[in-house]
């Protein structure tokens, strides 16, 4: 095997050939970047060194193009124990406990290999959570596909859903929700964003740092193979319909192995936490990024002996060993002399745990292979890619947009409601979610399908609410206001369950940043998110960027996914979205305007979205959320549901379905406004005996709340507006809502 390896290395192009043939360019390095490397090193980099720069300087690892935008995020308040820059962010939730969360995208791999791409997305985000010492308690997913009328899209949906289910169910972490949207913009570039939430005792928190000269680097978990080689560079390039995509750049997941790695890692932290200096998951750019980032964060150096890396294939070269994205691997830094108990613990679980190197004090990243030094570079230089100056230009579609709001055609309000309920973005996703195990661990209070997922915290009265949200149509019309509205809606989802929003993460899915219009959208979205995050007091504690979501130079709509977590102090206050009993009074919180540009009804009636985005009233949003939370915490609310796509009529109808109820309400606006999407609104139901107390709270909060009518037992949805009426059997509405997606998927 030794000779074979030497032969393999001997076939690698020489530094001079790499320069002459511009091999670095195939791996995504620009001429300018390559010249900088040569200049800094004082020589031409060899094959392995060129490879590690291409991985670490890819957008996926370095965030070199998105960093100028990301620096604008607000990420500090009293609760923040760990902000961005680690595996995941951490927030204090009291009683010595903390919540850990992060979201990540796996868009490119999921398009090429839907099942494995989505599955390994789940695996990767779980490792980010338990690398912080936390027990993962939930997974959520935010998915975007093209229209379901395309057979290719239906196959993608099936593959992605099966992949998330296959990994998440097998490892035993419940799927607590998320959302799925459909739009042609994603036909050639679906989005698979996965979020995970974990719990940790503050005393057991870990970080990914390689401190202390002489400490030992331990490789844990699966052996390294040739899967996902240089996947980070693959994820940092656009797709083309004429070129076959590189399937070998997609990794293969093993949830059963990850379960062992997860349990053993958490065990190791609990038993030997004092001797474990740092832990990091081997994600994008695998062993390379985990080891170099840990040293960079600690201001140290690293020396690895690659012959010691556990390998499942013969004749792996240093380039392959460093850039493989084989799954289910972790890197630990353990205090010198204390390695054996940690290694023994992993060995007992049947896992490889091997000392492969040590922390040094010289700031160098040094790799040894078969007695030779095959890479020797400056760590700071390697882990801080130069940030190019990129232009921003406001797209003309935004600059020149028509200020007038679309005027929906609502001749038959009942028919419009029934049709909206069957729009794939609004219709029930239960037929897809039912493939996810939402109850394993037996802590789930609100399953997928509510406004937010809720998981109780055992041994306390507390619970955590969690949601993901995005409306790319709003962001397309105005990325800044769209960003604000995504954060606002995530907040409303949490508040509707009775939770106080405490923090957020994000996945920024955009096209190529080299396009000045896309780069403008990215900056605007981040600014909008930050403005609303500050108002809501939900710091951005982690996140992920996915750029180059383009096929044939057509970028997706700007899609800034927001993942948010809320805290419920008393689980008796957990509130559901559906009406509970006939006779309860129905209230609308918030004012309704003609908010139609970017709405579902505009899309349904015109096939497109256009015009200036309607106004967003941040003060009203905050006031309304505050009121709803106060009313729920006072124990006066039977159900609470936030208004989003499809507006008031859709929200009212949805609330009748779970218990097959009806309603009889009057709305002091037009029939068209029943479908308006003005932000900041909720519908609440209140039991008759609580009406007096509820109305006192309205007065105290000076909230804009009107009584609409009553929940009924007659299973009819009756909504009377000033110029029209909806009169639709609950069963008929529910049938459209529940069967739209199964029918489309069956075609």
């Amino acid at each position, binding site marked *: 095997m030794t000779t074979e390896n030497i032969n393999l290395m001997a076939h690698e192009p020489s530094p001079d050939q790499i320069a002459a043939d511009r091999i670095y360019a195939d791996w995504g390095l620009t001429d300018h970047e390559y010249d900088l490397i040569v200049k800094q090193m004082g020589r031409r980099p060899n094959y392995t060194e060129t490879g590690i720069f291409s991985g670490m300087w890819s957008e996926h690892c370095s965030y070199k193009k998105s960093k100028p935008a990301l620096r604008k995020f607000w990420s500090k308040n009293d609760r923040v124990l760990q902000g961005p820059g680690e595996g995941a962010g951490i927030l204090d939730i009291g009683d010595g406990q903390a919540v850990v969360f992060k979201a990540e995208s796996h868009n490119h791999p999921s398009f090429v290999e839907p099942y494995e791409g989505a599955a390994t997305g789940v695996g990767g985000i779980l490792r980010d959570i338990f690398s912080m010492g936390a027990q993962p308690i939930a997974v959520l997913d935010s998915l975007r596909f093209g229209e379901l009328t395309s057979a290719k899209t239906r196959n993608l949906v099936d593959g992605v859903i099966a992949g998330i289910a296959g990994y998440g*169910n097998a490892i035993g972490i419940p799927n607590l929700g998320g959302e799925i949207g459909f739009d042609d913009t994603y036909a050639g570039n679906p989005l698979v964003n996965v979020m995970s939430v974990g719990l940790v005792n503050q005393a057991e928190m870990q970080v990914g740092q390689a401190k202390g000269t002489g400490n030992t680097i331990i490789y844990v978990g699966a052996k390294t193979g040739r899967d996902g080689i240089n996947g980070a560079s693959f994820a940092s390039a656009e797709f083309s319909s004429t070129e076959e995509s590189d399937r070998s750049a997609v990794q293969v997941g093993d949830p059963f192995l990850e379960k062992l790695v997860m349990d053993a890692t958490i065990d190791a932290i609990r038993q030997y936490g004092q001797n474990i200096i740092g832990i990091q998951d081997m994600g994008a750019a695998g062993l390379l990024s985990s080891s170099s980032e840990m040293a960079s964060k600690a201001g140290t150096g690293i020396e690895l002996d690659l012959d010691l890396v556990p390998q499942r294939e013969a004749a792996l070269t240093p380039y392959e060993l460093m850039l493989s994205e084989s799954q289910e691997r972790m890197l630990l830094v353990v205090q010198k002399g204390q390695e054996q108990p940690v290694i023994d613990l992993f060995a007992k679980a049947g896992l490889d745990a091997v000392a492969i190197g040590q922390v040094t004090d010289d700031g160098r990243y040094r790799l040894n292979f078969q007695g030779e030094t095959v890479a020797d570079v400056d760590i700071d230089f390697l882990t801080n890619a130069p940030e190019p100056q990129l232009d921003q230009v406001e797209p003309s579609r935004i600059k020149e947009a028509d200020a007038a709001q679309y005027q929906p055609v609502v001749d038959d309000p009942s028919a419009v409601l029934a049709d909206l309920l069957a729009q794939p973005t609004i219709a029930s996703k239960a037929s897809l979610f*039912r493939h996810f195990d939402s109850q394993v661990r037996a802590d789930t209070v609100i399953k997928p399908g509510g406004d937010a997922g809720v998981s*109780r915290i055992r041994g306390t009265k507390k619970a955590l609410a969690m949601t993901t949200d995005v409306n790319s149509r709003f962001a397309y019309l105005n990325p800044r206001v769209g960003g604000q509205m995504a954060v606002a809606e995530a907040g409303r989802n949490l508040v509707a369950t009775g939770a106080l929003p405490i923090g957020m993460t994000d996945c920024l899915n955009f096209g190529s940043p080299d396009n000045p219009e896309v780069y403008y959208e990215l900056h605007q979205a981040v600014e909008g998110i930050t403005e609303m995050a500050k108002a809501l007091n939900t710091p951005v504690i982690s996140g992920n960027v996915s750029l180059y979501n383009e096929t044939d130079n057509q970028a997706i709509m700007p899609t800034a996914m927001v993942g948010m977590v809320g805290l419920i102090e008393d689980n008796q206050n957990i509130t559901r979205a559906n009406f509970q009993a006939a006779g309860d009074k129905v209230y609308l919180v918030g004012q309704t305007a003609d908010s139609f540009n970017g709405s579902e009804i505009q899309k349904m009636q015109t096939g497109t979205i256009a015009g200036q985005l309607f106004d967003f009233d941040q003060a009203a949003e905050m006031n309304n959320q505050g009121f709803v939370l106060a009313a729920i915490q006072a124990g006066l609310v039977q159900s609470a549901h936030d208004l989003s796509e499809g507006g008031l009529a859709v929200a009212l109808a949805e609330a009748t379905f779970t218990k097959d109820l009806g309603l009889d309400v009057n709305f002091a606006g037009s029939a068209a406004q029943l479908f308006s999407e003005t932000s900041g609104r909720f519908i609440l139901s209140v039991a008759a005996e609580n009406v007096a107390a509820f109305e006192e709270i309205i007065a105290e909060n000076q909230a804009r709340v009107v009584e609409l009518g009553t929940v009924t037992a007659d299973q009819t949805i009756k909504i009377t507006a000033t110029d029209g009426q909806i009169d639709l059997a609950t069963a008929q509405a529910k049938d459209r809502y529940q069967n739209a997606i199964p029918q489309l998927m069956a075609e």
Partner: protein
Amino acid sequence: MDAVKVAADNGQLVIGICNGFQILTEAGLLPGQLLVNEQPGFICDEVNLVVENDQSAFSQALNHDDVIKVPIAHGEGNYLADEATLQELEDNGQIIFRYQENVNGSAHQIAGIMNKAGNVFGMMPHPERAVEALTGNDSGRAFFESLLASQQTRA
């Protein structure tokens, strides 16, 4: 599994839920096997179970024909056995729970069975996920109350 087999031979209660049921059939402690759902794919839902036998250690807190709503979460819950075995299960009262609607294609709508001796039991649904009002369902408690009652009888 050797220790489990010894316990079963000694008449101790052995219970397998979901994957546990699959393991008990593969280990030969319960007859039959569990195949991929008739409509392939993992299902997480709540389904109605009908109590067939209310005299067992696993169901004595329930009544015959009671319907309880219990969570399921499986992709391979389609119970299969040969006709003779199925007849034997029926004749001996070894079928404890049946699905009200056959969610996964199981023979004789079987959701849970015990061995002939009445001390080894397997079921695909998850009563342990339905024991608290807070998590939305406590209809699985009767299963655990049955176990407690049977242990008290033994003592």
